[in-house]
């Protein structure tokens, strides 16, 4: 029960703070919708020249929604959000106050994950409902899609902990980290530009990019109705990556505690 109470307390605190900054909350909503619409329009337009049967806007959104969700929305909310939370605690020294309390490291880790998962679920619903409202009809297994989304969230939170505890000390550092690591990975993952237009060399390189696998796995499930067997490589790559990042994130967090655990 101790872990449960603590995890909920940490998550509630993060969400309360976010709720208080209403502008940020609004931007968290605007960003994925804007990317979804842009991606959808790009897909729809490109299909007119690339495919014998052009896609309707609804069909284009079916393909744009997964890329928008795992490739853009979750990246900024779960990875960027986790980094920002940890960095803010370090910058304002509230982490020291937490060290004085009986809060366990596990609860803190889970609390941050839970808070950003809540934001991610909100974004998932927003993107899904917007796409459906504009004519998209998703297919495939909802459970499998949910697992892919959860794995993506875990992977992003893990990476967020690694970056937040090891590479970023101030809020300004978050921008440079996102610019240096995030944007190239997002582009190469097909979040902003559909992967099918990549040249072969980029497509080969994308095989090493976890965002590409998140994107491909979810797209193939919800837009093409693929089952686990058909997306096996993407799925298991993602399982391995999420596990590795969670472990690395946890170890990074433990290391930060050892270094900074004093007044």
């Amino acid at each position, binding site marked *: 029960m101790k872990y449960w109470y603590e995890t909920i307390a940490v998550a509630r*605190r993060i969400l309360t703070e976010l709720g*208080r900054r209403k502008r940020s909350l609004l931007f968290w909503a605007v960003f994925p919708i804007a990317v979804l619409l842009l991606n959808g329009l790009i897909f729809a337009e490109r299909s007119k020249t690339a495919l014998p049967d052009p896609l309707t806007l609804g069909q284009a959104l079916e393909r744009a929604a997964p890329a928008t969700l795992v490739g853009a929305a979750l990246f900024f909310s779960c990875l960027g959000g986790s980094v920002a939370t940890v960095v803010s605690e370090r910058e304002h020294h509230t982490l020291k106050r937490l060290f004085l309390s009986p809060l366990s490291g596990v609860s803190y880790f889970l609390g941050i994950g839970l808070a950003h998962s809540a934001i991610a679920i909100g974004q998932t619903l927003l993107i899904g409902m917007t796409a459906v409202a504009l004519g998209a009809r998703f297919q495939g297994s909802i459970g499998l899609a949910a697992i892919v989304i959860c794995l993506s969230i875990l992977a992003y939170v893990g990476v967020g902990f690694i970056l937040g505890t090891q590479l970023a000390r101030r809020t300004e550092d978050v921008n440079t980290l996102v610019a240096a690591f995030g944007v190239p990975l997002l582009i190469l993952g097909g979040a902003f530009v559909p992967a099918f237009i990549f040249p072969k060399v980029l497509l080969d390189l994308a095989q090493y990019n976890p965002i590409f696998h998140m994107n491909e796995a979810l797209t193939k499930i919800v837009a093409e109705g693929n089952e686990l067997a058909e997306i096996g490589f993407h799925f298991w790559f993602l399982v391995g990556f999420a596990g590795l990042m969670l472990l690395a994130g946890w170890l990074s967090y433990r290391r930060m505690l050892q270094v900074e655990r004093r007044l």
Partner: protein
Amino acid sequence: MLKIEHLSKTYGQRRVLQDLSLSVGAGEIYGLLGPNGAGKTTTINILCNLLQADRGQIGINGQPVSAKTKCLIGVAPQETLIYRHLTCAENLRFFANLYGLTGRGQRERVEACLAAVDLADRAASVAETLSGGMQRRLSLAIALVHQPKLLILDEPTTGLDLEARFAMWELIHQLQRDGITILLTTHLLDEAERLCDRIGMLKQGQLLAEGSMAELRQLIPAQEIVLIQTPAEDAAIARAAALNFPQRRYGRDLAFWLPQPMELKAILTQFEGIPLDSVSRQPVRLEHIYLEVMQRSP
């Protein structure tokens, strides 16, 4: 309530704490004084189980320091560590949750703590909108939310204006009246003198002197201190030496220790023939004792 025995801590080659022993009785306010680097914060870190001592033992309410004793201790750190985007009540509720307080018990503690620090009417105010003094009081309320047995106040009034400082002093006295044991570190000697039942003076990790103000006054052979401004300082110093009045300098002030209290007229008589611009008598204060203790030690 708190018993520290033979505590030692070394960082590399640097000995931060050297065989430190002290005890604080239940309901007592104990002031730990010392210059920067004396080992005050290291002691607090060890008390709070954030650092491991190399040697020595600490008992808090009879229990050795561990994760479990965190619930016995409340700490108001020198920095105001609060969540600035949360309201006062939300800050307290968050920390109450971490200490396992829920439901009605939590609501009552939050209300009681806000009332104790005189922030009941600001419960719904976002912390960043409070003044510096109020934020410091909120930080103290967070330290109290789980009803600690031992409260550690690290420089509780540093950076506060005079009015806020007086309010904080009154609050600390009230907490003592409520039965809380308090360990206080401060650089402000008048604060320690005003608040503390007993005082320990720490330098380079060693406790040089300890006791109540009455006990500490025995450390210097003076009943009173006289400050003299004169254009003929050498003559005044020579006269004082002849009278067996030890001489000291406090900053630029020339001071003499009087072995017994003397009326102003008697002091003027003793320095007759030496031109005096001003003479002022002072009781022996903690600052005089502190300087003496610090300067005596190598």
